[in-house]
């Protein structure tokens, strides 16, 4: 039967499933989304403000792509869902029917009820509109911005404003930056790097309220220590949560996000959710969070659900954890799990360059010496290598020995494997000699 599949949200999750649905079937496909007419890479919003790219560079597909592939687009906001009649109410008065509905509505910035949080000059960084707002808020220059919330979007926003040389104060509630993810040493390294970029970092500091000036715009903030910091822009980057307010009035079960099982099915037949807005009752992988607000999971979910709808029922299985980020000039990659503090059965091996911002931390099982995960800063590593080694349940010794195979830095970069291995040997009384790079190690099955 030819379905009419309606997708709400043209982010990475919505667009990926649309592309695979098209690839696998000739169902009618319609994407309704309110933010922008075409899909763009949210992850790169910062680069537009910084002047590295224009907004159009953020669009991975040329505009003709959609029509040519018979993926219909509609720019509108869905106000409500009637699952009994399988119809959607749009803000432009239109009603749209579907046979299958896919919710891919993404996230919205958290606001914690701070006084003044809705004043002009106060904003998050999530959408294209937020980008335009920031442009507007800084168009006449500012003397200072205060950013609240020590996560990835916070440091990106700080970097953006620093790129235009605006003074930035960065309030972090905890005693470390991104301390729930990064081990102390690495977090401290990033914080040193923030100083290099003249970011005024305030640890253990929270926002109490935002004060309006005579013009009604934010003019300063007050911290929990009672300090007033004058500023014209306040960035709220204390995390994001699923953007599902309009779903709440429907029959679809929600908690923080739209509740789904491992097949991305909601409680209502023919209604699915994926991407940032989906929340698993229980994550099929066990070691991941029930809400995964990251880019690549939206892609994997998209392909998985398209397979289920068009081919065979397939459970979501994102494989081994990996991720990456960039803190100003320091690139970060992680494969497998490295928690800030080793768990009961775990041990960390950590190497840091004495002067440069380079570090490698390997987590392994201290009983079986099985490799568990790796964090690297300033050194690129090969995803394929670690994925393979995790599958093969290799030992830490094996990883150390074959580290050169995993190096992904550009040619002619100085390589540090010898130093790393030497330190590992001296700490662990081992006698490992690093193996020369060998393609066969990586590509033989």
């Amino acid at each position, binding site marked *: 039967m030819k379905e009419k599949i309606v997708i709400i949200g043209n982010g*990475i999750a919505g667009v*990926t499933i649309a*592309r695979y649905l*098209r*690839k696998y079937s000739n169902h009618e496909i319609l994407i309704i989304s309110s933010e922008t007419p075409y899909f763009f*890479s949210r*992850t*790169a919003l910062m*680069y*537009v403000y*910084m*002047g*590295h*790219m*224009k907004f159009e*560079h*953020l*669009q*991975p*597909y*040329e505009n003709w*792509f959609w029509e*040519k*592939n*018979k993926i219909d687009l509609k720019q509108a906001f869905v106000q409500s869902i009637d699952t009994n009649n399988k119809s959607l109410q749009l803000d432009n008065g239109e009603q749209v029917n579907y046979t299958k509905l896919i919710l891919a509505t993404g996230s919205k910035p958290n606001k914690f009820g701070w006084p003044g949080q809705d004043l002009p000059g106060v904003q998050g960084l999530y959408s294209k509109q937020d980008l335009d707002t920031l442009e507007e808020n800084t168009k006449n220059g500012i003397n200072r911005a205060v950013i609240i919330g020590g996560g990835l979007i916070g440091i990106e926003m700080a970097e953006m404003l620093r*790129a*235009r040389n605006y003074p930035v104060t960065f309030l972090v509630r905890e005693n470390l930056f991104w301390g729930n993810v990064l081990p102390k040493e690495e977090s401290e390294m990033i914080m040193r*790097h923030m100083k*290099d*970029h003249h970011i005024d970092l305030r640890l253990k500091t929270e926002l109490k309220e935002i004060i309006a000036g005579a013009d009604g715009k934010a003019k300063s903030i007050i911290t929990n220590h009672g300090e007033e910091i004058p500023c014209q822009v306040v960035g709220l980057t204390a995390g994001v949560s699923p953007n599902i307010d309009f779903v709440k009035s429907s029959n679809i079960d929600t908690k923080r996000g739209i509740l789904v099982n491992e097949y991305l099915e909601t409680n209502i037949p023919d209604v699915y959710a994926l991407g940032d807005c989906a929340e698993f009752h229980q994550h099929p992988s066990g070691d991941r969070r029930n809400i995964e607000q990251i*880019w*690549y999971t939206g*892609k*994997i979910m998209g*392909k998985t659900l398209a397979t289920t709808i068009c081919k065979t029922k397939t459970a979501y299985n994102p*494989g081994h954890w*990996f991720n*990456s*980020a*960039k803190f*100003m*000039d320091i*690139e970060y*990659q992680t494969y497998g799990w490295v928690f800030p503090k080793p768990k009961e059965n775990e041990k960390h091996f950590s190497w840091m360059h004495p002067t440069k911002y380079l570090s490698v931390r390997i987590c392994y099982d201290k009983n079986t010496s099985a490799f568990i995960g790796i964090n690297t800063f300033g050194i*690129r*590593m*090969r*995803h*394929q290598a670690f*994925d393979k080694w995790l599958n093969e349940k290799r030992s830490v010794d094996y990883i150390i020995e074959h580290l050169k195979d995993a190096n*992904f*830095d*550009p*040619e*002619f*970069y*100085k390589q540090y494997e010898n130093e790393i291995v030497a330190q590992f040997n001296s700490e662990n009384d081992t006698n490992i000699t690093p193996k020369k790079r060998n*393609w066969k190690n*990586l*590509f033989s099955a």
Partner: protein
Amino acid sequence: MKLIQQIGLYTFIAGMLLFTANVFIGSYRFEEQTIVAQLDATQDKIDTGDTIANGFKAALKELSFLGKKYNGEFDFISDLNQAITLYNKNITTELVTVNGITPSEIEALYSGVQKDGKIIYNEELLTTVLTDPAKKQKLIDGTNWMFEGQREYADLESFKNDLNLKLEEINSSIGKQYHISTEAWNLVNLTKAFNVGGSKTNVELWFFLTFGLIIIGGLAYNLPNIKLLGMAGIKNNGIQQTSISNKGWLAWIVLGYLVGFYLLLYFAPHYLNNNILLVDPVSNSLSGKPAGHWFLYGFIYCVSMTIMAVRMYIKYRHNNYQIFRTTVVWFFQIAFAFLIPELLVRFDKPWYDFKNAWPLDYDFFFAFNIDDLLANGTLGAFMFFWGIILTLIIIPVMAYFFGKRWYCSWVCGCGGLAETVGDPYRQNSSKTLLSWKVERYLVHSVLAFAIVMTLVTLYAYYSGATTIAGIDVYTIQKIYSFLIGSIFSGVIGTGFYPIFGNRTWCRFGCPLAAYMGIVQRFKSKFRITTNGGQCISCGNCSTYCEQGIDVRSYAQKGEDIIRASCVGCGVCSAVCPRGVLKLENSDAPKKVDGNPLIFENNIVKLNKDV
């Protein structure tokens, strides 16, 4: 620091303005001793016993230009052209009376050709009319196609028409060897010689005021960036918001300036004589000869590459690939394209750039070049041999091992300019599918054109023919030199940097790049590997790819990038914020069907283009 940079900028602009002004401020005079010095170097006597200098002086007198002083080059150049035309005409007219076919001889031909109411033109007639065997031979060569049996003429009129055309041709070619050449190199020499004012009065001072200020200003502008850009890392801040790098009005001004410069350089270099004078001392110290316009160009090329190489060092100081690459490509320009060829000239050897390979070096197989090389003993023979080996063996073998990057962004002069002077414009190359299509048609057509032209040339060279399959060898060479050699590679290729990006020529026009691209695409160890599922589709790689490759479209699928046009500049890898891209030469299998790690593989089948 900011201040130094500002001063640097103004110094640079001042240098540029003076350099530009200098084009227009020469003053000129037709002086007798200059005329003698320029035109009678060999003391050749014309058949009539006079010298070229005297003939030219007479022409100047006739036009009352002799001794006249000019304050602008436009008047002077127009008068110079007029005088040369007059002299060339005079000398021909004069020599026609001695060596030409005279009016009485022509009359004799007309009457002799009519026999029994028919037109009968043959060698016999020529033998009776023309006693001078040289003249007779000329007419046989020129008109044998009109002989009886070859062609029928109904009446005298139609015969006269044909014959007169030929006679004019023959007569006007008389004395050619004594003509003053109006080719670029000679006009450059003459304008330089007759120049009596402007920068010629103090070459050192003017050298400082132009090149000196440009170099000092350029460096003073670039060097403070060590501090100003902040810590080492990718600093592309503001590039899309600044007029000059974002196709704003400043970019168009730069474009206009560059296009204007290239037009003068290629088509009227004598207008630059005042600037060519500035580099005479440099040229003399290298080759022992005064500078021509190509020397000026080479010098500017080296200076700009050096200033902008410094910029690259600072911008990419965290990236050894960029540092090494910039150093090597700079070295090849300075040593191989500039110093070595000039020094060869000093020792009376042919000017030869050992790294310039056919078909980029499109006139390598032109007769003049082959003759020149082969006339130069073992060294010349080696050069000829080397040029062939370079194209047939070294280029493809190296492209097999390293991809075309070893040439395009490590060795080539065009590439060197693009990677240094052009780097600020790399983001302006178009990434659309349409431009990819245009690129493929265009660049391969140029390659085909170069091959056909060269085959025709070589066939002509060894067979002695001048036309092959209806193609006139000289014409096809001219068309190629004009369209591809000048307009495409220079005026558009470099002039359009600010709008079309810095690899316009390399991407759309270079036949050598097309040739290596075929090797790279189908048989090479080189590829850009993508790192599993780490790509966040941000678009930095595509934006900064100077070849307009949509790198992201591969990276987000986890596919390796195996594209004919990739010059391996490494910038996509440098700007990627997630460490996704790595240029590699390896034996590992290439990933072209999507990467299982990210569950993404080849896209929507309905759409074959994507």
